[in-house]
């Protein structure tokens, strides 16, 4: 049987018969991947270690005096009230809007859907800047709740809408056939299926509420983060700031636990290639349609109309002089620099962990991931404080440099890159790589030609999300930015601190313009995936 062997292959033992490396994934160069993942996760533990370390260092007596005092009680009450009022309101608004745009025949559904996502392009502190300009006396809990709901409801709207889109209508059909009325079908069949999306979105809103500084500072509502900031300004690195940070960190962890319990055993749905089934649409009668449209319009007006109008007002009032290019352009450049560099660094750091979670899932990998997850729930100010303390005492060369800022961004935003990256790598199963190897490509070439190419869109999406987060980031940048640097966010903040609202307007406008394309990306992405 004549079998022509291709040139170069003989029957003799070839010279490329290499020495066997016995054993597991780890010994086959996977050690690098594991090592990098561990490194990143250890970094992520820094803020937690700092919080614990400083508490231990301060001494129990001081801790008691600093933590158990009326002021902290005040802050705790404020924070708790804020959370327990805002989150349910966000849920109600998010679910209602999602249901209206996904499951009814409301006219202009696609536009309402887009408009419900758009408020994400406006940074939270710009929302409160707009409201304070519009209604100067506005302050306190009411203002806090109002602006928070407006700024954060899209975090609930997006996953709920995405899940509604992918629900199997057969389940609802069966429920109806078993005698449930339409309203009962919604509450007993549809809503429970939204549990995951609602939990995830509510957690996100809650964590933002705890971490946000600019929004509450402007409307004079004291929360832990504003108090930590005040302490920081007064004592730089004093124990009181650390103690407040510890309490705040505990609140975040508590929130994580609550969400985990609420989620129960349910698993997040895998991104599947399910066929798009015909969803049942509810036809709204005229009065209901009018109500629905009114709700949509009102939300739109409050969430988009107010900030945009106020901005326009200020820009017109300020005229050309407020466009101080000598200040604006460097700030823009700096923001872009931080954004791109931060996004690249964070995405690269996420690669080993995402790799492990798809290719070699297991207990260790899950533990590594939770380290990152926990740290990213901490507010930016705690992370920044931790880094300031650590770099001053142990890593002086990088103190007050761009590296520290980027590191803070990495710790804060890693999970955003991780989620998208995971989805991307999942698009490139190991089987494809194996086939490429069987077709003569070396393992490295196979990785490059197949896996990385397929994972690239996921990586890009993750990087885009991190970029969006960085352009709007205020607190950590305020604390960590090197001498003489100013981003759009910190520039905006400096202007508003001087009550120079007109001068702040160009900064706000630029931030919104930068955020718009990425918000569009988020919207587009949510249309493709179901609640993760």
């Amino acid at each position: 049987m004549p079998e022509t062997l291709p040139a170069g292959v003989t029957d003799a033992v070839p010279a490329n018969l290499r020495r066997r490396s016995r054993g597991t994934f780890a010994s086959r160069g996977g050690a690098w991947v594991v090592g990098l993942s561990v490194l990143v996760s250890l970094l992520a533990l820094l803020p937690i270690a700092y919080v614990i370390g400083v508490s231990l260092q301060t001494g129990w007596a001081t801790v008691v005096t600093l933590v158990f005092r009326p002021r902290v009680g005040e802050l705790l009450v404020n924070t708790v009230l804020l959370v327990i009022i805002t989150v349910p309101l966000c849920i109600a608004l998010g679910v209602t809007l999602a249901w209206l745009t996904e499951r009814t025949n409301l006219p202009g559904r696609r536009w309402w859907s887009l408009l419900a996502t758009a408020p994400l392009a406006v940074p939270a502190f710009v929302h409160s800047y707009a409201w304070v300009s519009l209604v100067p006396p506005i302050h306190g809990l009411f203002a806090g709740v109002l602006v928070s709901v407006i700024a954060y409801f899209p975090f609930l709207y997006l996953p709920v809408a995405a899940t509604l889109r992918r629900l199997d209508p057969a389940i609802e059909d069966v429920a109806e056939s078993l005698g449930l009325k339409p309203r009962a079908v919604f509450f007993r069949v549809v809503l429970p299926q939204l549990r995951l999306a609602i939990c995830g979105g509510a957690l996100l809103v809650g964590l933002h509420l705890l971490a946000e500084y600019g929004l509450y500072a402007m409307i004079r509502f004291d929360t832990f983060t504003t108090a930590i900031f005040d302490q920081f300004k007064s004592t730089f690195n004093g124990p009181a700031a650390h103690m407040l940070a510890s309490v705040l960190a505990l609140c975040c962890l508590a929130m994580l636990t609550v969400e985990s319990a609420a989620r129960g055993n349910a698993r997040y749905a895998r991104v599947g290639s399910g066929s798009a089934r015909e969803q049942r649409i509810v036809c709204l009668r005229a009065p209901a349609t009018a109500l629905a449209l009114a709700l949509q319009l009102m939300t739109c007006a409050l969430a988009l109309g107010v900030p945009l109008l106020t901005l326009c007002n200020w820009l017109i009032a300020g005229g050309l002089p407020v466009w101080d290019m000598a200040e604006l352009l460097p700030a823009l450049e700096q923001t872009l620099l931080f954004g791109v560099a931060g996004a690249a660094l964070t995405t690269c750091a996420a690669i080993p962990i995402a790799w492990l979670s798809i290719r070699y899932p297991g207990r260790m990998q899950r533990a590594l991931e939770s380290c990152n997850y926990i740290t990213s729930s901490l507010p930016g100010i705690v992370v920044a404080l931790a880094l300031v303390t650590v770099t001053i005492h142990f890593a002086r060369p990088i103190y007050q440099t761009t590296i520290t800022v980027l590191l803070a961004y990495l710790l804060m935003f890693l999970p955003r890159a991780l989620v998208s990256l995971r989805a991307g790598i999942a698009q490139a199963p190991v089987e494809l790589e194996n086939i490429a190897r069987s077709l003569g490509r070396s393992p490295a070439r196979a990785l490059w030609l197949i896996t990385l190419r397929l994972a690239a869109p996921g990586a890009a999406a993750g990087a885009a999300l991190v970029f969006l987060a960085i352009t709007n980031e205020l607190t950590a940048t305020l604390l960590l930015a090197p001498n003489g640097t100013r981003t759009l966010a910190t520039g905006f903040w400096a202007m508003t601190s001087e009550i120079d609202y007109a001068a702040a307007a160009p900064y706000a406008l630029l931030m919104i313009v930068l955020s718009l394309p990425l918000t569009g990306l988020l919207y587009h992405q949510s249309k493709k995936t179901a609640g993760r």
Partner: protein
Amino acid sequence: MNTLELHALNKTYGTHRALDNVSLSVPSGSRTVIVGPSGSGKTTLLRMIAGFEFPDTGRLSLNGQTLVDSTHEVPAHQRLIGYVPQDGALFPHMTVAANIGFGLATKGNEKQQRVAELMDSVALDSNMAERWPHELSGGQQQRVALARALAQQPRLMLLDEPFSALDTGLRAAMRKMVAKLLADAGVTTILVTHDQSEALSFADQLAVMRQGRLVQSGHPLDLYRYPEDEQTALFLGDAVVMPARIEAGWAHCDLGRIPVNNHRNNSTAQIMLRPEQLQLVSLLPSDAEMSGCRAVVTERDFSGNTCTLTVELQPLANGDQRGRSLLVRSSGMYAPPAGSAVHVSTIGHAHVLSEP
């Protein structure tokens, strides 16, 4: 000359023994099928040959060249072994032409020509070249995967359940086409499947695996006629298995006295007959005593060209004990009706199964 030699391969995952001392020789140019139930280790074995897994102990050599032994290994990308997995696994970000051409070292016109040739050989229309994998049907995807693997003119082709994802009607046609294609190319092929009819029809050499062990290997007909044990027998097709007493080339069982291929004396064993070895004849009262035994048709399952009859044998000993029930196949049109008395006779030898 044997193309592929597997010698005492062992692989353990934690506490689970995936491969247990597997040895096999694959002759050059032949089609070997490794068959077995899920979890029997056949896919692990295939991946080991391809180079995606490595054995704990044992030796693997191709055309006299050692691919794996206790001290050395050749990495997958240097083995020149084609691999076609279950669902084709086409690269989703490349067109059909790019997929097929992936393994080719040439460029430009030469490459295009070769790709066209390959597409032709797997009966793919040339206008499919610029299509994307998700635009193709299952059968088309499988053919592209085949062409892709053949492009590099491999020394060995490995097919991992390639037809199981296809519709039943398509399966047989694809099987025939692939068999012809590989025979024309003269490539040694190893196919893994859990489908016994596919295994029996495709193979020159059949190997049965169970729980990591290679239970039996040889010509399909030999395995079919003379399986090692009951499980293998049942796996390769329907079988009638019953206890019998062997004596000097004859088995005494419920069917009476049947010749066997084993000359043990005075021992009890299980014997096996294939359904096609049983013949039914309607019994006329006037029929004289014939060899074989009497039975009554208790159930009749008509399915077109065949009729599956359940017959209850006349009990050997007198008593209340009911006789053994057997399934017998008969032609659809001439099957005796239910309740009728029939005479069951056997053709050929019964096979004595080894002790489990």
